[in-house]
């Protein structure tokens, strides 16, 4: 295991035992700071959206033109920039750590940072100019300024540069180590990025071939439904691109952080392989109510959605096993004693434990959404934001914050500022989101639409008042928690005097059942990718054929 001493700001000046080199550390570090910038901007909008429900207008709150302008900023910064830049940053670091060698290309690593920055800045400018109030899903025929789509291209290209770099590093490592198992950490980042590489083809096709030329005026009309099919080709798998970096932390770092070992190498590899294979052929579950798509294909995607739930169940098992053994090793007794024996005093651990607890509800509500007939009840209601603030808004976001509590000290060499505040931050977020989502979920069941300025709605149904108050109270609590998070991070970077004790990335030792017991086929990345492509073709070719011929008949509209 490479030991790297990050005791000072200057740690990464010059080569550190040839693995963590300075030219590669700064892009990782600055990409991590983009995570925080995106969270700050998006979180501010989120606070506005929550307050809108109890009478504070978005126009007066943030000086915006409309509620939808704010919501577009919220969605783009949080669902795209926040998650992507974190994935790039953490996965690059863990790839280096996993293969025990620098990334193959320093240029790609730096390029990934610069394109992410370009995408964020360009997107922010266009959104703030109210030229792209199309929400983060940018459904046509709503037509934004072409520069907005260009910003989206930058964001995706940034992840592709990281993907190329991870694959290249893998190939180099493989050339030097022809017979070895892929180190587990590197295996998880590699499969995550290959999955995303395949998944992002949908959105790339949509933007490059249809939306961008149309918004540039090269084509007059577009086919909104075809665009939606391509969008949702990416749109479900994207949630795993958000989630898997959190899973990577749960599998690879949490066991070490609680003083335990991961249960099984093979089970972990299998989980990530299942995500690689089944994340994408599920996208139609976002289009159950869409016309023009065969019900058979919708049903096939429905079944596959339940298939992709399975690796999350394995994850629940593996992580809980590791946590229990950690808790028992720390002296926890009895049926539940190990839970209390976990290192709850460590803010990084506690935030992630809470993220997991909240995620159980996120999974349950996700199964509700995925069930075609039940989906009709909740589709496009506030139930959906209720669901995904438990998943991406907490399981992922709170894990990112928890990881930051070692990542930032590790990268900056500074001791974590005010760990007590950091602890409070995690709890506030968890309790806040439980309240917030309770409000949104019950509102949704009372037919409250999502993506609606409820405070200005023409009418209100019974039950909405409670829903609005819970949403507002929960949302404010989350915002307070977010503010504490910034205090801790900014404090760590600028006020913290002492050097950190964190000198090592908390990646666990070999699992209880190590790589020798795990199936060698899992490492056949190339073959697995081919299988994934075949599954995608099975799931999407008939969908497209049954949909075609396309009807390019919609002119662009600007509804804001």
């Amino acid at each position, binding site marked *: 295991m490479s030991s790297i001493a990050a005791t000072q700001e200057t740690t990464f000046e010059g080569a550190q035992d040839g693995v963590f080199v300075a030219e590669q550390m700064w892009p990782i570090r600055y990409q991590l700071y983009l995570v925080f910038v995106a969270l700050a901007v998006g979180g501010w909008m989120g606070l506005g959206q929550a307050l809108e429900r109890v009478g504070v207008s978005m126009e007066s709150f943030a000086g915006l033109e409309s509620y939808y302008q704010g919501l577009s900023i919220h969605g783009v910064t949080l669902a795209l920039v926040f998650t992507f830049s974190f994935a790039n940053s953490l996965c690059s670091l863990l790839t280096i750590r996993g293969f025990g060698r620098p990334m193959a290309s320093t240029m790609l690593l730096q390029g990934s940072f610069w394109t992410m920055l370009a995408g964020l800045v360009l997107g922010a400018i266009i959104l703030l100019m109210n030229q792209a109030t199309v929400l983060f899903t940018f459904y046509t025929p709503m037509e934004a300024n072409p520069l907005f789509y260009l910003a989206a291209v930058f964001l995706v290209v940034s992840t592709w540069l990281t993907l190329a770099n991870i694959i290249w590093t893998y190939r180099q490592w493989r050339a030097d180590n022809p017979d070895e198992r892929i180190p587990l950490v590197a295996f998880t980042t590699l499969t995550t990025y290959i999955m995303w590489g395949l998944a992002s083809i949908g959105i790339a096709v949509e933007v490059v071939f249809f939306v961008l030329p149309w918004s540039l005026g090269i084509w007059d009309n577009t086919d909104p439904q075809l665009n939606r099919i391509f969008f949702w080709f990416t749109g479900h798998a994207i949630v795993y691109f958000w989630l898997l970096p959190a899973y990577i932390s749960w599998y690879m770092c949490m066991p070490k952080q609680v003083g335990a070992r991961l249960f099984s190498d093979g089970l972990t590899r299998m989980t990530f392989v299942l995500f690689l294979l089944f994340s994408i052929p599920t996208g139609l579950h976002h289009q159950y109510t869409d016309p023009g798509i065969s019900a058979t294909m919708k049903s096939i995607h429905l079944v596959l959605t339940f298939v992709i739930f399975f690796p999350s169940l394995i994850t629940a098992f593996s992580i809980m096993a590791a946590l229990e053994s950690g808790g028992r090793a720390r002296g926890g007794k009895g049926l539940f004693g190990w839970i209390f024996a976990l290192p*709850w005093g460590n803010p990084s651990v506690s935030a992630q434990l809470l993220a997991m607890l909240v995620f159980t509800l996120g999974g349950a509500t996700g199964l509700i959404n995925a069930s075609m007939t039940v989906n009709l009840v909740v589709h496009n209601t506030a139930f959906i934001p209720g669901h995904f603030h438990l998943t991406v808004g907490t399981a992922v976001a709170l894990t990112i914050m928890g990881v930051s509590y070692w990542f930032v000290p590790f990268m900056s060499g500074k001791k974590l500022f005010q760990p007590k505040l950091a602890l409070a931050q995690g709890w506030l977020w968890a309790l806040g989101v*439980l309240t917030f989502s309770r409000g949104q*979920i019950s509102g949704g069941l009372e037919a409250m639409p999502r993506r609606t300025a409820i405070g200005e709605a*023409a009418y209100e149904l019974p039950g909405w008042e409670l829903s609005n108050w819970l949403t507002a109270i929960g949302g404010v609590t989350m915002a307070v928690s977010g503010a504490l998070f910034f205090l801790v991070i900014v404090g760590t970077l600028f006020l913290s005097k002492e050097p950190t004790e964190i000198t090592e990335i908390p990646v666990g030792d070999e699992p209880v059942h190590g790589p020798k017991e795990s199936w060698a086929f899992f490492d056949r990345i190339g073959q697995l990718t081919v299988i994934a492509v075949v599954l995608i073709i099975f799931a999407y070719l008939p969908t497209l054929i049954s949909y075609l011929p396309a009807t390019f008949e919609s002119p662009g509209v600007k509804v804001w």
Partner: protein
Amino acid sequence: MSRTTLFVLLGIFAVVLIFGYTAVIPTNNEPRAVPTNTPGAAAGGGDEAGEGGDSSGAAAAGQSIYDAQCAACHTTDGSDSIGPTWQGLIGSEIALADGSTVVADEEYITESIRQPAAKVHDGFQPIMPVFELNDDDIASLIAFMQSLE
């Protein structure tokens, strides 16, 4: 973190989780604004229309138009919904959004149906759709409204 603090925090978490989310399903059977008022109104309206003598045929015809086209927004039991209730509407004095008042006579009712935005009842949104009903239909609706005292 002390063990007591942890117990308390996890306890709060569990309480929010269990009580918050098990009570999520709308369990109250109180009438929800839109659908459930209709049957009740139908029964009540029917009885009274019976007592109304001559106008009963017209009131019944008015009620069927009400059931089909108006019940989504108007109640007959005195509670306001998306639109104002019809109970006690006829002859009452109505405050308008522009600050003036008007008596709800036949003329006002007719205008409210044919040009809902012309005079907007204070405190309500001007969202009522235009209904192109003929004079007979409007007469039946008024008879039905009169039966709702």
